[in-house]
């Protein structure tokens, strides 16, 4: 008996096995498999339509997968009804109960759950959680009387108060403005650290994914594109698509020939090769530099016309366009010196160190 419990507790809190889901002809999920360990914060990242929300809804029990299995702490829950799973779900639009106060929203799961919780404990736990998310004093407010950021906190408190074994967050910061989003990011991490609950956080925003996750899962057209730490994914994207989603890489099409990559702009030497897929070449925005025409003696070169720049505070992004209309971005960190002045419409040679180039294929 004791041994059995020990084995169970070694199981990851969530394990997905070949999860597949179709809507008509469209494949939303295709053989998705991964696990979430106890206390882990996993960011699930991908462009819209990648199947992120479908995956989350399948784990919560709002969608039944066509194939594959879902295990929660070693127990299969693939066909368990949503209200018996003990998985918390925080909705993008918050989905608060509009006719209930903040207090009653948070207490809902305790009052209506499968386990009967005495009303004294309900109030105590609800108040404690309301305090944890920083809403002390707003218990009696109606949902119409609080701001968007406060609604987000109520949604979080409502889920956390039932002590779910796993918390699913569906683009939880998507409905907030940029300023608030940054503050809530720090808040989410603080709350998570305090509770030590595993979080699975879905986001379409690459910065959010990199910032929040202990581990990052990149979803690409219903399949797992990459699985790794934020640094691994950021520095070594596993595919050209992952590199594109990160929004940090210029990606070129072409073919792998001999020891270099043949693109429409000439041959590119490379540093790293990720094998086994459609050939492509990726170089990070901040690794590219622009030089005067014909000033580059050797190495990879892309000739492009300067269009415009965008000032980001700590960095500046210059946009160049090649003759076949491909936009190449060059990021210059202002801590490395003042930005160069480019002339609009004039051609420059863009180059980088061959070692920084990643080739797929």
């Amino acid at each position, binding site marked *: 008996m004791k041994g059995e419990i020990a084995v169970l507790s070694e199981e990851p809190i969530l394990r997905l096995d070949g999860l597949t889901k179709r809507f008509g002809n469209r494949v939303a999920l295709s053989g998705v498999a991964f696990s979430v360990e106890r206390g882990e914060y996993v960011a699930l990242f991908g462009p819209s339509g990648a199947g992120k929300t479908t995956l989350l809804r399948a784990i919560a*029990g709002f969608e039944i997968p066509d194939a594959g299995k879902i295990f929660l702490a070693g127990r299969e829950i693939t066909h368990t009804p*949503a209200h018996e799973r003990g998985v918390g*779900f925080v909705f993008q639009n918050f*989905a608060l109960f509009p006719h209930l106060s903040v207090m009653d929203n948070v207490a*809902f*799961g305790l009052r209506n759950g499968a386990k009967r919780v005495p009303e004294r404990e309900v109030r105590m736990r609800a108040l404690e959680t309301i305090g944890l998310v920083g809403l002390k004093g707003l218990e009696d407010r109606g949902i119409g009387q609080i701001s968007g950021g406060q609604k987000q906190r109520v949604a979080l408190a409502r889920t956390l108060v039932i002590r779910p074994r796993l918390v699913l967050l569906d683009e939880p910061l998507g409905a907030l403005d940029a300023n608030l989003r940054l503050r809530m990011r720090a808040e989410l991490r603080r709350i998570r650290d305090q509770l030590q609950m595993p979080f699975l956080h879905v986001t379409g925003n690459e910065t959010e994914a990199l910032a929040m996750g202990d581990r990052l899962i990149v979803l690409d057209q219903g399949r797992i594109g990459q699985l790794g730490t934020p640094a691994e994914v950021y520095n070594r994207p596993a595919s050209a698509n992952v590199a594109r989603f990160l929004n940090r890489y210029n990606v070129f099409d072409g073919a792998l020939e001999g020891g270099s990559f043949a693109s429409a702009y000439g041959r590119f030497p490379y540093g790293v090769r990720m094998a086994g897929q459609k050939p492509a070449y990726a170089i990070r925005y901040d690794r590219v530099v622009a030089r005067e025409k014909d000033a580059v003696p050797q190495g990879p070169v892309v000739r492009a016309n300067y269009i415009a720049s965008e000032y980001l505070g700590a960095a500046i992004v210059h946009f160049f366009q090649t003759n076949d209309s491909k936009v190449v971005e060059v990021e210059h960190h202002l801590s490395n010196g003042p930005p160069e002045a480019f002339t609009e419409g004039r051609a420059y040679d863009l180059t980088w160190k061959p070692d920084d180039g990643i080739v797929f294929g």
Partner: protein
Amino acid sequence: MTSSETAGGAVEIRSLSRSGAARSYLLIAPAAVWMTLFLVIPIAVIIYVSFWTQTTFKIESTLTLDSWRTFFSSDTYVNSLWTTLRIWLIVLIATFVLGYPTALFVGLFVKNKTLQTTLLVLCVIPFWTSFLIRVLAWRPMLGKEGAINIILMKLGIVHQPIEALLFTDLSVVIGMTQIYVVFMVGPIAFMLGRIDPNILEAARDLGANFWQILRKIIFPLSLPGVVVGAMFVSVMVLGEFATSAALSGRKVNLLGNIIVTQVGSLKWALASVVGVILTVIMGLVIAGLLRVVDLKQEL
């Protein structure tokens, strides 16, 4: 320069808002005139006439309480007041009990919007026939040798035809419920259709089962629809006379039936008394229903 510009701007804004106010009065004028001519004045006249002196063939504008005394001292009239309230309450409950599940099905369980609209239109189809036909059609259904009795006897459930089906309170309640239930279904289905499906999923995720969600989330959110539906049904049932005339065999006398007979025998004063009583009851019922929810906030 700047200050004079500001002052000019302020003047302009003020005159704009004044003409705006004038325009809004103009916009409500037709409705106000209409309501005054056809609601306020008639009600005032009815109240006034209820105090007139009625003799067998004549009515005079000498003020008296005679007609009011006649109404409240006659068992027939007072009983018809209670009958009206009883039938109203039973029909209201029946339309809710039948209408709520129907609305729940149409408004919440049918996900396809086209199918939803189709089902609601189906509910309205009986209204394409005349009121009288709809009511009278119940006679061959409920009668001693009517369809229901024939079926029950063929199935061997009863051996004697049930006579209580027609020309009783029950037949009036059945007839009215069938006619008015759709006014309950419509507003409730509308409110249910507006519930964000994520809210129901959130409740499920928090561990609530179907009945808890129905009681704690769906019903409270649909309450404004229930109140609006109840208002529709109440106003129509309280003023009813045709269904009871056709299906009760003159045994069920509602306040509406009394108005019809009194007007028929040119007893205008007593008819006005009943009219005033009916209007007061409707006012009380609506005021009561409005206390249940704040419709201004909900709709």
